[in-house]
């Protein structure tokens, strides 16, 4: 594994961003493979117009056609090109994943930092709330909320983001509890820094390295959550995500294997890539943290 420096007060990648790449490179198989998988799906979604001439929403006369040169992934029951739907669906799935993760990581970081820094009753209350959120069946809560409030991209993003913060909050809280007793915090406190300054300038940068791990796992879980909602019929038909494609594929499972195989493959590849990346990154960061004892 990685060699730990004896006193890592601030992760190297904060000061030298290029070391993120170095960290990934140190975790040969897992991290790099994850990064590659994620890169492929991001490029596929971004470059969709260059990769296929077909329109994901355009109806065609050739319905439920098997994969061919004209339609590499086949067509669906309305004659729409599945390759185009998978590529453009990536924009929806990845977009929802990114935005929801931004909400959940931001919220989790704030709550975790406040709980870990102030401790006492505030910590106790925040942690009870966090536990409650963790125990509740997140996806079922999301289903009920979206059913009642209405589906749509924004609602999906908000609901997933607002329900997914506890994991990040707990990790960050644990980190902050350790950092809180470091000497550089005491030094900053003695030179008159108030709690806001301490949190923003001294603690937040030290938590950021963990957020990178958290963020990639959160994007993965948000994409999964979105596919869950879409699979239950709560997706936005105007913006078909991979989950929505899988829901439509379910109806024709016996006749058209390509309707479920390809969107599912894209979904699985992305989630696996993000999980591998998160694991790789955490491997390279967890080592110094553990050796401190």
């Amino acid at each position, binding site marked *: 594994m990685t060699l730990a420096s004896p006193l890592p007060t601030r992760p190297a990648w904060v000061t030298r961003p290029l070391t993120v790449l170095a960290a990934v490179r140190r975790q040969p198989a*897992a991290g790099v493979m994850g990064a590659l998988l994620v890169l492929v799906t991001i490029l596929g979604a971004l470059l969709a117009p260059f990769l296929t001439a077909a329109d994901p929403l355009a109806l065609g006369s050739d319905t439920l056609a098997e994969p061919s040169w004209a339609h590499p992934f086949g067509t669906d029951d309305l004659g729409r090109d599945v390759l185009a739907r998978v590529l453009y669906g990536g924009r929806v799935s990845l977009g929802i994943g990114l935005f929801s993760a931004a909400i959940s990581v931001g919220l989790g970081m704030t709550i975790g930092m406040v709980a870990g820094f102030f401790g006492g009753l505030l910590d106790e209350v925040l942690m009870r709330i966090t536990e*409650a959120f*963790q*125990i*509740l*069946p*997140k*996806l*079922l*809560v999301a*289903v*009920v*909320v979206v*059913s*009642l*409030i*209405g589906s749509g991209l924004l609602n999906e993003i908000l609901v997933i983001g607002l329900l997914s913060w506890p994991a990040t909050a707990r990790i960050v809280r644990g980190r902050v509890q350790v950092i809180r007793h470091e000497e550089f915090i005491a030094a900053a406190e003695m030179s008159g820094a108030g709690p806001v300054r301490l949190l923003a300038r001294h603690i937040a940068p030290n938590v950021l390295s963990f957020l990178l791990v958290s963020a990639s796992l959160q994007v*993965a879980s948000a994409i*999964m959550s979105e*596919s*869950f909602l879409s*699979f*239950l*019929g*709560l997706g936005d038909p105007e913006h078909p995500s991979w*989950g929505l494609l*899988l829901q439509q*594929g*379910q109806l024709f*499972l*016996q006749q058209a*294997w390509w309707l*479920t*195989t390809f969107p*599912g493959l894209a*979904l*699985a590849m992305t*989630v*696996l890539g993000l*999980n*591998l990346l998160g*694991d790789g990154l955490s491997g390279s960061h967890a080592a110094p943290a553990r050796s401190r004892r």
Partner: protein
Amino acid sequence: MLPALLRLSLRRALLALPLVLAVIAFTFFLIRLAPGDPAAILAGEAPTPEFLAQVRAEYGLDQPAWRQFVAFLGKAMTGDFGTSIYSKQPVFTVILERFPATVLLTGTAMVIASLIGILLGAASARRAGSRADALISAASLVGYSLPGFWVGQLLILLFAVSLNWLPAGGMVAARGSYTGWRHVEDVAFHMVLPVATLAVFLLTMIARFTRAAMVEALDQDYVLVAEAKGASRRRVLWNHAFRNAAVTTVTVIGLEFGMVLAGAVVVEIVFSWPGLGRLFYDAIHRRDFALLTGAFMFSSLVVIVVNMVSDIGCAMLDPRIRR
């Protein structure tokens, strides 16, 4: 032993109560927050004026908000979740009809996944860093990353559509209603694919957490002492390391039970399994909100109870927690 455990169980139950109340309150506010008239939401689309008036009176929707909440809370606490718009039956009755199928599916998957997951996790931890460990860890990460419903769909494509070995869905054969032992056989036959789908997700999760906990346990002094005393490898692994790691495994199963139930929901949809998950799906599509919110409150209650039981289970496994 019993009094301490009993006290703990009572304390856990008291801690769970606010959570149950929170779920009910949340559902109540959600119905009020949703666009439109709460009565219309609970009565479904285009209700007859009589039914609308009945719902309005039933929930006291003409009364002030706090009175409505008290009425809603009182009803929910006694298992009165309203009337299903579609089937016109009490929601609670509909849920209880479907619940056993979900218990059968999740229970079986849980038992199989725990056995295999713990074995794999322990085998992986014992040879931490070896090639076998890397293989098991990689496989469980892949399994963990696969969307459950897609795994189910692929299994159907392979075993039901292509090979025609197993049924693609349902709980019993459509033609011929069997009784007695033949019925049990028939259900078991239909269970193979859905249970396998759900177990893949559970198994990889349990294997991952068990491995982590076992690696940590094997590093402890008590393992060293046990080894020094000449205990066999197997004894050290299961009696010393696993007894301690099991607490983590049980905690994880409890904490992730919400995910397990969500997994069961999609698996039931893929395999047309007549359980609670299928009910969610039907309720969403028929816009049967009384049924949907009822099923939600009921599932949340199940999750909270499982969590409580897993907490108590941990205390039974580890006397240190009992205090």
